[in-house]
C-alpha cells in the first residue's frame, strides 16, 4: 500500500515537472505584466487612501484632471482636462484664486457611463464630505478655505458652530453644503475651483499620483452607497470606518485598467479596459504581487516570473549584473530621513531618560532645548559613511527638511559634517559647562526591524561615547507598538522620522517639519512650538504658501532651510534615491518621483 502511493506520487511529480516548463530567455507571458512588491494595500477608495500601496492600485484604474509630463514633477500635461490651467491661457484667474478645467468630451468610465463635469464636481465634494480622520483631504481644504482649515469640521464650526459633522441637523447640513458647493462650480463642461487665496501648489494637489484627485462616476458611486449628493446624507457619509466605506473594495474609473481581483497583501489583478480613451494598454492582464521575502522575489525575477520587482538598495547588487536584468538608479525621490530632537521630554513614566536629571545618570527634560547639545549631536554623525555604507552611496545629505529638486533647496548651503572637535566644543558649552562635568545617560530608541535607523543610532553612540567617557547612550530596539505609544506620549528623547511628499512643493515639507502646528512640532514639544513662533518660522511658512511669486518663495524657503540647519532643529540625515529593477524585455518604463508605484499603461514587453 505504501509502495503504491509512493510510485503514484513519483509519477505525478515527474509529470508535473515536464508539463509546464517555462523558458527563461524568451519573453514570459507577453500579454501579462507582473510586478512584485512588498507590503499591502489598505483601501481602494481614493479619498480614504493615504499610503503608497493603495495609491499604486488607484493609479491604474482612476484618472485625474491633469498629469505630469514624463519625468518632470513641475510640468503638467492635460489628462481628463483638455488644457492645463495657466495665467497665459486664462484658465487661472488674474488674482490667482480661480482655476478652471475644461472637461474632455467622449471619455467613458469602464461601465460605459460618460464623463461629465458633474462627475468632477461630485468627486471633490464627496471627498471633502467623507474626509476621514488622518486622511489626505486636508490638502483640499487648505487651498479652498485657507490656512487653518484642515477638514470638514473646521468648516462646520465656522458656518454653523457645530464641531462634529456627524451631529449636523438637516438644516445645518444644507448650509454647509451650500458653502462647499460655492467652492466648486460647474458651467457647461467646465469646472472652476474657487480658492480662498492664491495657492502655488494647487495644480500639484490635483495632478496624477494624487489619489484624492481621482475622478469618480457619480451615478455608480451613489449606487454603491457613497454620498448621495444631498445635504441630509452628509452626516452619514462623514469619516467612515475603513472597511464599512462603500468604496473600500470596489473601483470604477476612466483609466486604462479595471480591477479584477484584490486579495489584500497577496495580489491585485487588473484586466485591460478595452474602451480606454487613449487606446488600450499593451497587456491584457497586469498583476501586482506582494512578496515580503527578498530571496523569493529575486528568484522570481531571475526566472522571469516577475517582470519587475522591488529590490532594496542593499540587496540589489545580488541581481544587478545578471543577464536579462536592467537596473536604473539615482532616481530622485521626494523623501527624507532625519532624527527629531525632543526639546521638551515628558518625564512621567519615562524609562528612556535615566534619572531625568543632569547628574550623569540621565538627561533632563530640556536636554535638547539647549542648542549646543543639538549642534554637538549634529557634528557627531558620520553622514558620509552613512550614505556610502548604509545607502550604498545612493543618497544625498539632507540640508534641512526641503529635498532636491524643490524650491529652496540649495546644494551649496551649509551643512554639518562629522567633526568631533566641534562636537566637543559644543558639548563643553552646553548647560554652561555643567554637562561636560557631569556627563549623561540616555536611550536612543528605534523601531525593531528598521536597520538604517538602528545604524544611525549605533553611529551616534559610537562617536559620542568617544568624546567623553561620561557620555552614555544605550541603543534600544522596541516593538513598533511600543514605539508608537512612546512617540505619542512624548517620552522618546529623540526619534527617527521620514517624510514622503504628498505633492512636490516645499510647503509640504516645511509645514510638517517646522511649523508649530505641524506634525513633527508635536514630537518636539511646547518649547519648540513657542520658539518657532518667536523666531518667525510660522510667519515665513504662511507667507511662502500665499504668494505665487517664485523668486520670493525661493528666498523664503532658503531662509527656512538655513534656520533649520543653523539652529540644528533636528538632525538632518539624508535623502535616499530610488532605483528600479526589471527584465530587459520591459520597454517604456520611465521614472517619476511623484508616481506612487508602477505605471502599467506606459510599458510594454518585447524581446531585444
Amino acid at each position, binding site marked *: 500500500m505504501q509502495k503504491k502511493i509512493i510510485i503514484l*506520487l513519483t509519477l505525478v511529480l515527474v509529470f508535473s515537472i515536464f508539463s509546464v516548463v517555462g523558458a527563461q530567455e524568451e519573453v514570459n507571458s507577453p500579454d501579462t505584466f507582473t510586478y512584485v512588491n512588498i507590503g499591502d494595500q489598505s483601501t481602494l477608495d481614493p479619498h480614504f487612501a*493615504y499610503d503608497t500601496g493603495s495609491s499604486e492600485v488607484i493609479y491604474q484604474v482612476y484618472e485625474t484632471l491633469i498629469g505630469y509630463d514624463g519625468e518632470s514633477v513641475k510640468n503638467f500635461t492635460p489628462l481628463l482636462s483638455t488644457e492645463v490651467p495657466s495665467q497665459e491661457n486664462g484658465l487661472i484667474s488674474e488674482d490667482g484664486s480661480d482655476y478652471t478645467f475644461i472637461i474632455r468630451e467622449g471619455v467613458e468610465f469602464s461601465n460605459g457611463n460618460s464623463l461629465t463635469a458633474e462627475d468632477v464636481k461630485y468627486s471633490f465634494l464627496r471627498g471633502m464630505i467623507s474626509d476621514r480622520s488622518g486622511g489626505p483631504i486636508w490638502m483640499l481644504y487648505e487651498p479652498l478655505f485657507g490656512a487653518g482649515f484642515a477638514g470638514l469640521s473646521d468648516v462646520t464650526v465656522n458656518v454653523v458652530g457645530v464641531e462634529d459633522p456627524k451631529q449636523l441637523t438637516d438644516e445645518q447640513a444644507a448650509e454647509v453644503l451650500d458653502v462647499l458647493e460655492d467652492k466648486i462650480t460647474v458651467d457647461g463642461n467646465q469646472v472652476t475651483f474657487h480658492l480662498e487665496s492664491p495657492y502655488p501648489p494647487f495644480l500639484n494637489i490635483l495632478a496624477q499620483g494624487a489619489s484624492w484627485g481621482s475622478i469618480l462616476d457619480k451615478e455608480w458611486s451613489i449606487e454603491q452607497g457613497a454620498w448621495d449628493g444631498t445635504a441630509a446624507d452628509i452626516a452619514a457619509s462623514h469619516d467612515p470606518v475603513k472597511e464599512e466605506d462603500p468604496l473600500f473594495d470596489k473601483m470604477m474609473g476612466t483609466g486604462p485598467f479595471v480591477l479584477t481581483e484584490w486579495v489584500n497583501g497577496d495580489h491585485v489583478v487588473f484586466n485591460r479596459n478595452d474602451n480606454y480613451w487613449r487606446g488600450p494598454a499593451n497587456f491584457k492582464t497586469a498583476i501586482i504581487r506582494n512578496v515580503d521575502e527578498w530571496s523569493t522575489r529575486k528568484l522570481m525575477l531571475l526566472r522571469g516570473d516577475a517582470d519587475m520587482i522591488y529590490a532594496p538598495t542593499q540587496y540589489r547588487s545580488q541581481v544587478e549584473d545578471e543577464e536579462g536584468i536592467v537596473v536604473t538608479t539615482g532616481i530622485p525621490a521626494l523623501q527624507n530621513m532625519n532624527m527629531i530632537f525632543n526639546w521638551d521630554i515628558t518625564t512621567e513614566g519615562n524609562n528612556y531618560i535615566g534619572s531625568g536629571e543632569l547628574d550623569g545618570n540621565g538627561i533632563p527634560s530640556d536636554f535638547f532645548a539647549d542648542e549646543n547639545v543639538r549642534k554637538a549631536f549634529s557634528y557627531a554623525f558620520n553622514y558620509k559613511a552613512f550614505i556610502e555604507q548604509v545607502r550604498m552611496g545612493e543618497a544625498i545629505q539632507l540640508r534641512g527638511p526641503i529635498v532636491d529638486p524643490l524650491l529652496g533647496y540649495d546644494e551649496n548651503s551649509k551643512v554639518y559634517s562629522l567633526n568631533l572637535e566641534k562636537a566637543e566644543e559644543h558639548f563643553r558649552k552646553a548647560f554652561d559647562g555643567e554637562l561636560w562635568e557631569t556627563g549623561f545617560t540616555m536611550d536612543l530608541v528605534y523601531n525593531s526591524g528598521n536597520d538604517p535607523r538602528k545604524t544611525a543610532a549605533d553611529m551616534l553612540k559610537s562617536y559620542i561615547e568617544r568624546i567623553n567617557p561620561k557620555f552614555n547612550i544605550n541603543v534600544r530596539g522596541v516593538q513598533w507598538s511600543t514605539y508608537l505609544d512612546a512617540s505619542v506620549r512624548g517620552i522618546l528623547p529623540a526619534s527617527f522620522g521620514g517624510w514622503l511628499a504628498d505633492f512636490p512643493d516645499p510647503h509640504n515639507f516645511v509645514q510638517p517639519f517646522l511649523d508649530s502646528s505641524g506634525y513633527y512640532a508635536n514630537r518636539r514639544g511646547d518649547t519648540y512650538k513657542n520658539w518657532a513662533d518667536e523666531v518667525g518660522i510660522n510667519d515665513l511658512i504662511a507667507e511662502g504658501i500665499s504668494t505665487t511669486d517664485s523668486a520670493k518663495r525661493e528666498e523664503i524657503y532658503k531662509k527656512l532651510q538655513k534656520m533649520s540647519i543653523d539652529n540644528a532643529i533636528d538632525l538632518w540625515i539624508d535623502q535616499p534615491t530610488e532605483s528600479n529593477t526589471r527584465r530587459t524585455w520591459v520597454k517604456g518604463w520611465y521614472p517619476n518621483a511623484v508616481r506612487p508605484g508602477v505605471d502599467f499603461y506606459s510599458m510594454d514587453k518585447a524581446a531585444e
Partner: protein
Amino acid sequence: MRKESYELVNYIIRRFLILPFILFGVTVLVFSMIMMLGPYQRLSTYINDPAQLKGQDMDKLISKYGLDDPWYEQYGRWIGGVVKGDFGWSESAGQPVTTAIFSRFPATLELALFAVIPVVMGGIWLGVLSAVHHNQKFDHIIRIISTIGWSFPTFVFGLLVLMIFYGVLGWFPPGRLGADAAAIVRSTEFIRYTGLNVLDGILNLEFNVVFDAFRHLIGPIVTLSIVWWSYILRITRSSMLETLRKDYIRTARAKGVAEKFVINKHARRNALIPVVTVAGPMVLGLLGGVVIVESVFGYRGIGQYAAQAAQQLDYSGILGVAMYFSFLLILINLIVDVSYAVIDPRIRLE
C-alpha cells in the same frame, strides 16, 4: 464490552461539552494578555507603519475604535459579535477575521494533507527500523541524519530548496498557482468545491490546474517534511525502543514467538502510544501552518496569518486564530485520547 463502549461514548460527549469552556478560557487568556498593553500600543494595529503616522490624530482614533473603553466593554463587544458569527475585522489581513481564516485554511490544509504522507509514513517506518537495528550502523546514520534535519533552520533549507528547484531548475515556483492556472481558477467556469487546488482541479477536470498546483506544493512539502519527518522518526524510535524492552515483549520472546511477530503485533502497537501523543500536536502544527515555510514560499496559509496578526497586534485576528487552534486541538486531543483507549486496554479513562 457494552459497558466499555458506553463509557467511551460518555467520555466523548463529556469532552465535547467542555469545548465551549476551553474556548472561553483561551479567549480570556489571550484577551487579558493583550489588555496588558496601553491604548496607544494597541493602536498600532491600525497604524502599523511609521509612514502612516502622518497627520493622524491618535486620540481621535482611539475613541473611534473604543480602545480606551473598560476591558469588559471591549471583551463584551467582541463576544457579542462572536455569538452572531462575526469575529470582527482583521486589520492585518484587511478582511473580516472569518474570511481571513477560511480563505487561508484550504491552503494550509492542502499542504498538511500532502505533507503528512511522507512525514508519517517515512518517519514511522524508518523509526521502527532504526529501533530494531538499535546501535548498529544503520541506526547511527539515521539518527544523525534525522538530527541534522531537525536542527537545520527551516528557512535555510526552504531557501535552498527554492534556489535549487526553482532558481536553477525552474521546477517548483513559489506561491500557490502560476498566472495561467490562476486565471483558469478565477474564471467563472471553474467551480470551487473545496478550496484545495489539486482536488478542485480534478473535480473540474482541469488537469493543468492540478499539475500546476502540485508543482507549487512540492517545495513547501519537501521543506516541511525534512523537519517533521526527523521529529517523528526520533519519537517513533525512542518509543519503539522503550517498548521493545518491556517485560511482556521479553516474555513473548522467551516463549519463542517469532521476532517478526513480536515486533509487528506487540511492539508496534504499544510503541504507537507516545507516537499518537505526539502526532496530535504534530498535525496541529502542520494545520497551524508553518510560518517560516509559508513566508519563504509565498504560500498564503494560516501560519503566515498568525505571525502577521501577532506582529501587528491585530487583536481580533489573534483571538480568531487562537479560537481556531483551540478548536482543532481539542478535536485532535479527543481523537488521540480515544485512540489511546483503543490501543491500550490497560490505560483506561479515569
